[in-house]
């Protein structure tokens, strides 16, 4: 694969290379290659669908649709970054379509974390993960919805593909959206201020500035 993204992060280089080999094999009709890609990237697409506000069963339907559609698009996909970006974009579009169709009623203003209120870590999870995880969760919840969605998705993207996917997510629905760098900076500021014990001072101006 000569067209590897030269700006890739150094971590996990073999994951990207392996995906490209699998895409190549899948294009040549190797059934098991598709299956391995499904296993590799479905956890990411699950987060994409859930971050878009879908119920668990709608998310499953959407993933099934997206994977079926990928098979007819394989000819146009050659790099790991292109594969990941195509899958993420198609999953988001399909999720919006399903959500817009209102098959199951989910309020439109629920976004990002707010869309999965029952998914907060339970008491047992928190006991294991202790305060740090709890602080991170609180800080994420204070981010603007687009930042929540972007960071949630990008966190699951294979590292070499961060930039390509983040750049696509930076342009949601025609608006100039928050970028990964700005969202991470906001998250850091929230974490820092919560460490100082006064989260409101830092979060309020940030949130207003973004809107």
């Amino acid at each position: 694969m000569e067209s590897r993204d030269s700006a890739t992060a150094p971590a996990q280089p073999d994951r990207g290379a392996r995906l490209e080999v699998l895409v190549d094999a899948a294009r040549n009709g190797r059934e098991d290659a598709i299956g391995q890609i499904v296993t590799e990237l479905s956890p990411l697409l699950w987060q994409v669908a859930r971050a878009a506000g879908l119920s668990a069963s709608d998310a499953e339907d959407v993933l099934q649709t997206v994977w079926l559609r990928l098979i007819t698009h394989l000819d146009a996909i050659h790099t790991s970054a292109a594969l990941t970006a195509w899958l993420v974009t198609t999953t988001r579009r399909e999720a919006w379509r399903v959500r817009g169709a209102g098959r199951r009623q989910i309020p439109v203003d629920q976004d990002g974390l707010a869309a999965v209120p029952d998914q907060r870590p339970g008491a047992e999870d928190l006991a294991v993960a202790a305060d740090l995880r709890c602080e991170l969760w609180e800080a994420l919840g204070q981010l603007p919805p687009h930042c929540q969605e972007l960071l949630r998705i990008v966190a699951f993207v294979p590292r070499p593909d961060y930039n390509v996917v983040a750049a696509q997510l930076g342009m949601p629905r025609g608006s100039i959206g928050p970028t990964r760098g700005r969202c991470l900076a906001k998250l850091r500021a929230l974490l820092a201020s919560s460490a100082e014990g006064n989260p409101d001072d830092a979060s309020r101006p940030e949130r207003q500035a973004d809107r």
Partner: protein
Amino acid sequence: MTHPDLSGRPTDDEAPDESDLALLDEVRELFQAADPMPASLPDRIRFWLAVRDLEVEAARLCAEDGQAVLAVRGAEQSRTITFDSDSLTIMIRVEANQDGTVRIDGWLAPAQSRTIELRTVAETLTADADDGGRFAFRRVPRGTAQLVVRTGREPGRPGPAVVAPALVL
């Protein structure tokens, strides 16, 4: 801050630095714990893709009495599941055997004699429905499984193959 954005230009052209990656790792771990993908989902998608080439009619899960389809394996004793397609309704009753396998009794409506496949991770089991549309798989390993009702053999009534969504037994 790692990414001062004084100029207002997007910062996505820059590769994330080590502290960005560490923070994103934490975010990933958080969501993996808070909202994990169902562990069986990739397998069920793979099953689905494997039968996509068949000339098929897709059945939808339309009713289930008892535990959810995604029930934690072994949690339930008996459940009844109904799948609906344009030409066929498939009802199955799943009961736990003593030896850890399950027994599946099924009915096709309208009643017709068809070959039924049950694709499991390990093997594909087959059974023939009788004229009344009844079929049974006596010992089925637990795990992901998918029902496929094969094309009808009767001349004059060759129904299409019907594929039900994969489920976890």
